[in-house]
């Protein structure tokens, strides 16, 4: 490759890089700077401060922690379910595996709002679960505890992020060679040993991608808690959104957003570190 073609080919990437620089990096940088400014008389004043971060940690520790906790639960659930599902897609008989993969791909395009709405119709007071149970005579009154709580939020967000998370795990599993597996089996390794020592280390990257995607999405979600969550448990996304709505405190809102992202990053670093240690290939005696 000559330097000339290298230059032309970099030129091809210029529109994308320009768009990215001026409409993503710059806005994000601006947003970051705003988090160190303060609001005086409904105007953003140019006096730098760490006050917004202090306020975020002082006034919203419960929301931050419970949001990260909920995101962690969903990410673990989704990664485990995704792993089981991807294993089924990869190792079941081909026709079954393809059918399961098709289901995952179809639900990937099922729509975000449509899915949240579907859970509301299923879990609601007049929803399918309640009307079904009443029809069967198992309950006399609708169970109102199904909706408007963390359970409903976790269920709906697990349902939404699962198809997204299956793809990187399946991608990693597809690259796993059949030959070493067959060899290990011939040498007497149990299915569990093969799974732990051969399959799992090779799809660690895919598992981490799935975990990271889910964690970041759930930690930043503000719609599911609004539609399905209770009044007592509000996720940080709702507070962030409020700062840009009727509260009009953009600096505090962006400080909250960056605190949330930093918290998620800490979780990801910890998970990557622990995962690395747990999945390190065992040396042969």
């Amino acid at each position, binding site marked *: 490759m000559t330097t000339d073609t290298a230059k032309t080919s970099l030129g091809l990437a210029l529109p994308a890089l320009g768009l990215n620089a001026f409409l993503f990096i710059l806005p994000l940088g601006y947003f970051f700077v705003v988090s160190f400014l303060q609001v005086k008389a409904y105007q953003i004043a140019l006096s730098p401060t760490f006050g917004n971060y202090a306020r975020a940690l002082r006034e919203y520790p419960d929301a931050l922690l419970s949001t990260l906790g909920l995101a962690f639960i969903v990410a673990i659930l989704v990664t485990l379910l995704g792993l089981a599902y991807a294993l*089924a897609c990869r190792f079941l008989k081909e026709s079954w595996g393809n059918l399961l993969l098709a289901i995952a791909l179809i639900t990937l395009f*099922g729509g975000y709002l449509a899915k949240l709405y579907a859970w*509301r119709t299923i879990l609601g007071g*007049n929803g399918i679960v309640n009307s079904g149970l009443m029809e069967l005579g198992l309950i006399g009154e609708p169970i109102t505890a199904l909706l408007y709580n963390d359970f409903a939020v976790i269920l709906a967000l697990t349902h939404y992020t699962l198809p997204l998370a299956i793809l990187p795990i399946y991608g990693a599993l597809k690259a796993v060679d059949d030959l070493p597996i067959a060899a290990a089996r011939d040498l007497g390794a149990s299915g569990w040993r093969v799974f732990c020592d051969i399959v799992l280390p090779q799809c660690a990257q895919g598992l981490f991608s799935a975990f990271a995607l889910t964690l970041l999405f759930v930690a930043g979600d503000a719609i599911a808690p609004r539609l399905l969550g209770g009044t007592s448990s509000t996720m940080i*996304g709702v507070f*962030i959104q409020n700062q840009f709505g009727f509260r009009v405190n953009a600096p505090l809102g962006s400080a909250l957003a960056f605190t949330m992202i930093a918290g998620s990053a800490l979780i990801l670093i910890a998970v990557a570190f622990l995962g690395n240690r747990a999945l390190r290939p065992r040396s042969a005696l």
Partner: protein
Amino acid sequence: MNSRLLAPLGVTIGLFMIAPLLVMLLFAFSSSSLLKLPIEGLTLHWFAALTETQGFYPSLVNSLLIALTVGAASTVIGTLAAFGLTAGRHRLRNVSMPVLVLPLLVPPLVLGIVFLSYFSGLGFRLGLHTTIIAQTVTLQPIVILILASRLAGFDWATVDSARDLGAAPWRIFIDIIFPIIRPTILGAALIVMALSLDDFIITIFTIGGENTLPTLLWGMMRKGVDPRMNACAFILVSLTLLMGGLALRLTRTRN
């Protein structure tokens, strides 16, 4: 692997993923306004009621307009970038790729708010154009990723021999490269259009007073349960499924 364990597990998870959608799609045709099983009768009444809803047609038109524009823009820009980054082996590649893909890692809510404060900070009027810009920025990484992975397996030997035989670069692109990767480009465009149609969070922050199908659905959702929403969700899901399904067919024939 143990298929006696995997098969029931896979089927259960598969049902968990698809059943809620099927139920909702089914209710779009239920004659009763109560959402309960079994369904008493089938009707198209809710679709008719939906089309009479104020703002339905403008929302539909806006949704399609945004999806087409975003699809075209991010496909052209993303394809060029994927070429630039895979064909040339320059040092910038290792830096450019992560930066270009970064929007995918930022939660949509944060993206929406970032765009909102940037556009209003610059004094832009919000509308379809700001939504189109915001969606193009956030969805072009998907085109880049799909095309880059296709080009990673591309056989450059044909291109080299064409060049050795004296073909001009644009001839090489039109006669050799484009026909080979056309299905992937179309597939990427359709995936972006499906995601654009479905996008709610970034749209609601950047569209100002206009509506798309998802924001219309959101407006109805906040007022309570109403079977017209099932019809609206049905239309939305059918459109995205249609595009997504086509995209998967196109991209798979090559892989």
